[in-house]
């Protein structure tokens, strides 16, 4: 730990932390656009410049190692004037479409413009980047909103390891490009969307959230991704129960990063194919007199390689009928052949509570240890 002074306050900073880290840990907010705690310091936005005693020029706090005895000022008239000028410059290169922008309310540039009272740029408006690329089903790249903070480039290289994108050209012409401006699908992009996650503006937006609501319309729920065993924490943004987007939030297993399935793969939840009522197979329903139509030949065909039409193999029934039927038939088998004529298979996709109750049912009610899980497969 090192002790330093920030804005007149004594602050403790952990080993290896920067002045920015120390300030944020102490609750002192410093404006910043290119900084991201999980990525290497970039130092391009120049908003986090601070004054350090003994140094002539202001220094970017994101790249400045906190040292013992350092005296730092994060807000001064000079610094605010420079930050304002930098934002002014940036706004001249950014469409101010906040009233219809998807990112409104969650856009860092918009926030700082608000804080500095900048409604527009004092400079001539000129946006070099014109591309709008959406040749994929995952995310839209609207370059004119890009502020070249390169968080997306860094997350792609440093975290994901895909290096699908890189800044191309230079100076005012620079933009974040795929190799030879090919569609993302022809690059090593894994569509993990972590670039979308770290983008501070509307340059990267999930295709599926466009037109689905503004930030303040959304309800956010933290839960766990239902796919592989990593157990990533996800934050699901919904509007009226419909999923709008998924993001990471800083959970223990995954931090704020996700993969393509976790971020773009929850479409199944609201899918029309979801089962809504209990079903009984047509031959059984027929034999029970629940329906009049005899079972179709399709019941005898393999389910692999084809998808049945709705209601082709089963008919919907009430819960009471289904539950009693299950209880009757299972009880009959156990009474006739003993509990070991039954087997139960739990689920690696269900919760601990579900599985606990499942094995309780098998062991406690049926009285067999014939219970297993797809853990072995």
């Amino acid at each position: 730990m090192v002790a330093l002074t920030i804005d007149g306050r004594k602050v403790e900073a952990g080993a290896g932390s920067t002045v920015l880290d120390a300030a944020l840990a102490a609750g002192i907010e410093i404006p910043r656009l290119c900084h991201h705690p999980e990525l290497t310091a970039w130092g391009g936005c120049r908003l986090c410049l601070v004054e350090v005693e003994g140094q002539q020029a202001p220094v970017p706090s994101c790249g400045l190692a906190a040292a013992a005895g350092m005296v730092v000022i994060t807000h001064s008239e000079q610094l605010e004037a420079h930050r304002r000028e930098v934002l002014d410059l940036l706004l001249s290169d950014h469409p101010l479409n906040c009233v219809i922008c998807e990112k409104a309310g969650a856009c860092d540039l918009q926030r700082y413009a608000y804080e500095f009272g900048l409604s527009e740029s004092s400079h001539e408006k000129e946006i070099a980047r014109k591309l709008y690329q959406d040749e994929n089903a995952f995310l839209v790249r609207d370059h004119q909103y890009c502020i070249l903070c390169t968080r997306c480039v860094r997350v792609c290289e440093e975290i994901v390891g895909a290096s699908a994108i890189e800044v191309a050209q230079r100076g005012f012409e620079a933009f974040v490009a795929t190799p030879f401006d090919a569609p993302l699908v022809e690059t090593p992009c894994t569509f993990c969307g972590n670039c979308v996650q770290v983008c501070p503006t509307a340059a990267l937006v999930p295709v599926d959230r466009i037109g689905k609501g503004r930030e303040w319309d959304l309800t956010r729920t933290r839960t766990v991704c239902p796919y592989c065993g990593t157990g990533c924490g996800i934050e699901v943004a919904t509007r009226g129960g419909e999923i709008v987007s998924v993001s990471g939030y800083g959970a223990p297993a995954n931090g704020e990063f996700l993969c393509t399935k976790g971020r773009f793969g929850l479409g199944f939840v609201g899918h029309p194919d979801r089962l809504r009522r209990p079903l009984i197979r047509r031959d059984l329903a027929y034999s029970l007199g629940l329906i009049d139509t005899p079972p179709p030949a399709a019941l005898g065909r393999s389910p692999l390689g084809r998808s049945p039409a709705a209601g082709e193999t089963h008919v919907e029934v009430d819960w009471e009928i289904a539950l009693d039927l299950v209880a009757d038939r299972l009880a009959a088998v156990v009474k006739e052949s003993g509990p070991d004529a039954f087997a139960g298979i739990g689920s690696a996709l269900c919760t601990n509570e579900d599985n606990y109750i499942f094995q309780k049912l098998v062991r406690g009610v049926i009285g067999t240890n014939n219970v297993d899980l797809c853990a072995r497969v």
Partner: protein
Amino acid sequence: MPSAASGTTARPRKTVYLGDPLAEPPPPELLAILERHRGRGDVLVTVLQQIQAQYGYLPERSVRYASRELGIPLARLYGVATFYNQFRFTPPGRIQLQVCCGTACHVGGAPAIVERLKAHLQIAENQTTPDGIFTLQTVFCVGCCSLAPVVIASGAAHGRMTPGGAESLVRDLGAAEEGRP
């Protein structure tokens, strides 16, 4: 613009499997260049320079081969290639004209030379004449400031240039080049 206003983004067509565009091994002259640089950390720019020296420009396939063979992300190669003025992705003319626009040349009248050559060749900067003979570029200082203004044609420097002198230089070079097959 990603907004509700324009929100009817059509779902893109289904992806098709593109196959491996580099299924064939690299051509021998390219392989020779790449082999020289395998396993080194300081070669990226050098490799691009040598590819450009080989072909006169950076053919996209060659860059893709370099990425695969040397294990360098293609995006990085592309980012680097577009960063530096030296690299180009299209074949240049047979004669590359570079008008020096360094300080001494600028105050000595380089802008007028550029304008004259543009008018004479009827192309803009960084373009190649339709007959493929001339490519016109401006460069910032070739280090011949004491002889400003300077025009470089196919690597040879011509000092103390004037608009008229530059035009006749280009005329002569063009005439000589046209005679060739």
